[in-house]
């Protein structure tokens, strides 16, 4: 039997092209495996071969979603593969969105099965887990050795037509499709075991998680913006020069509140970004590109808005856990409410 053909998609970082300074790198196709592709090739053994690797920059893909998708799709089409593998992207948001977008398109538009891998909090996972088999990974690339064999195994099943097991068996993020299987232990025993763990305050995993529909109803519009006090909040990591609160460049555990009374403009001498997930050159040059104090201060003077709030709030949204982000925002919101802020402009990079 001839070998199956696989095309692999990775970002500029795993493609060994560069880090954030190369995030604008447009898609490029190389022959054979590159970077993590070599581990995939080993996992496939003699059953399948990575014939080509497509590498693109995370920012390039996300800023040009439609053209990027079309271009990469064409590169995949030319190879006529039996399987498309994207990532794994771990907790890298832009990379995860790119992997999901292209894997979904390869399946629907080319009819070729796809597999990817992500951490469950990756925004790409929420967007695509029901469309593309997404192997659950840890939140950073240290988990590569564990995830590659799982992705390769599921990929081989997709190519050979072998039945896919339940998510818990094959290691993918639950995709809304229920599979029946015979467990080793009967239900009563599993329930008692779970209860024992719960009583002993030990961690346990439910077999039937409740769905969480966490949507917040839109607040009413601002009636008169010329009287409104507006605050700026950002996940783009803008901080006073020197980063006094030592906000981490990724996986932030804190946020900062910075007073801007009397500040008309954020300059390269006074502000910078602490964010490690995008090329910092432009924000360091002029932080108004992320936290638009200059325009809003002028609008305040011109009477177009009531007031620019005296503080802006900033954290680094780079691999930062949902739990931490939530905690920061609850805290920030309480302060904003107590200070009579009427509306928030929240900027993200």
């Amino acid at each position, binding site marked *: 039997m001839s070998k199956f053909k696989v095309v692999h998609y990775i970002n500029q970082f795993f493609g060994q092209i560069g880090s954030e300074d190369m995030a604008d790198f447009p898609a490029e196709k190389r022959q054979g495996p590159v970077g993590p592709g070599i581990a995939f090739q080993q996992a496939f053994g003699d059953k399948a071969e990575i014939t080509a690797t497509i590498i693109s920059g995370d920012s390039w893909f996300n*800023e040009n979603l439609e053209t990027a998708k079309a271009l990469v799709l064409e590169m995949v089409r030319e190879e006529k593969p039996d399987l498309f593998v994207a990532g794994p992207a771990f907790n890298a948001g832009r990379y995860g969105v790119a992997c999901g977008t292209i894997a979904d398109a390869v399946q629907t538009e080319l009819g070729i099965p796809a597999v990817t891998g992500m951490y469950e909090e990756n925004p790409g996972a929420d967007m695509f887990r029901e469309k593309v088999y997404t192997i659950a990974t840890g939140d950073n690339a240290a988990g590569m050795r564990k995830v590659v064999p799982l992705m390769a195994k599921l990929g081989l099943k997709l190519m050979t037509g072998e039945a896919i097991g339940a998510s818990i068996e094959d290691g993918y993020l639950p995709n809304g499709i229920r599979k029946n299987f015979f467990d080793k232990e009967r239900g009563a025993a599993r329930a008692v075991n779970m209860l024992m763990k719960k009583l002993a305050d030990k961690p346990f995993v439910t077999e039937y998680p409740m769905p969480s529909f966490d949507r917040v109803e839109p607040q009413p*519009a601002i009636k008169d*913006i010329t009287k409104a006090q507006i605050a700026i*909040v950002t996940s783009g990591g803008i901080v006073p020069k020197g980063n006094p609160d030592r906000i981490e460049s990724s996986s932030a555990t804190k946020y900062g509140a910075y007073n801007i009374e009397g500040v008309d403009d954020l300059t390269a001498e006074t502000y910078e970004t602490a964010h490690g997930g995008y090329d910092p050159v432009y924000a360091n040059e002029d932080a*108004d590109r992320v936290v638009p104090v200059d325009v809003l201060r002028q609008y305040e003077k011109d009477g177009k808005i009531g007031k620019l709030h005296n503080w802006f709030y900033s*954290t680094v949204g780079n691999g930062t856990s949902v739990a931490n982000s939530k905690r920061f925002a609850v805290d920030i919101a309480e302060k904003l*409410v107590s200070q009579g802020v009427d*509306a928030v*402009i929240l900027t993200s990079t």
Partner: protein
Amino acid sequence: MVKEIERAGIPVVHMCTVTPISLTVGANRIVPTVAIPYPLGKPDLSPEEEYKLRSELIDKALKALMTEVTDQTIFE
């Protein structure tokens, strides 16, 4: 973060470049921006032109805050 602030009773406009992520995290008022490393800027423009671009984006954001919405809305 958008959700928790809005939940506390303050309308939020989310200005970001990757709008599908904003929709996934549950923002209700969304204004698409220029690029990931410079959402409200464009380094190849002159400072005056760049300021003008930024103020146009802020105008959109203010308009979004003044608009009643019942569902997630992208203000192009």
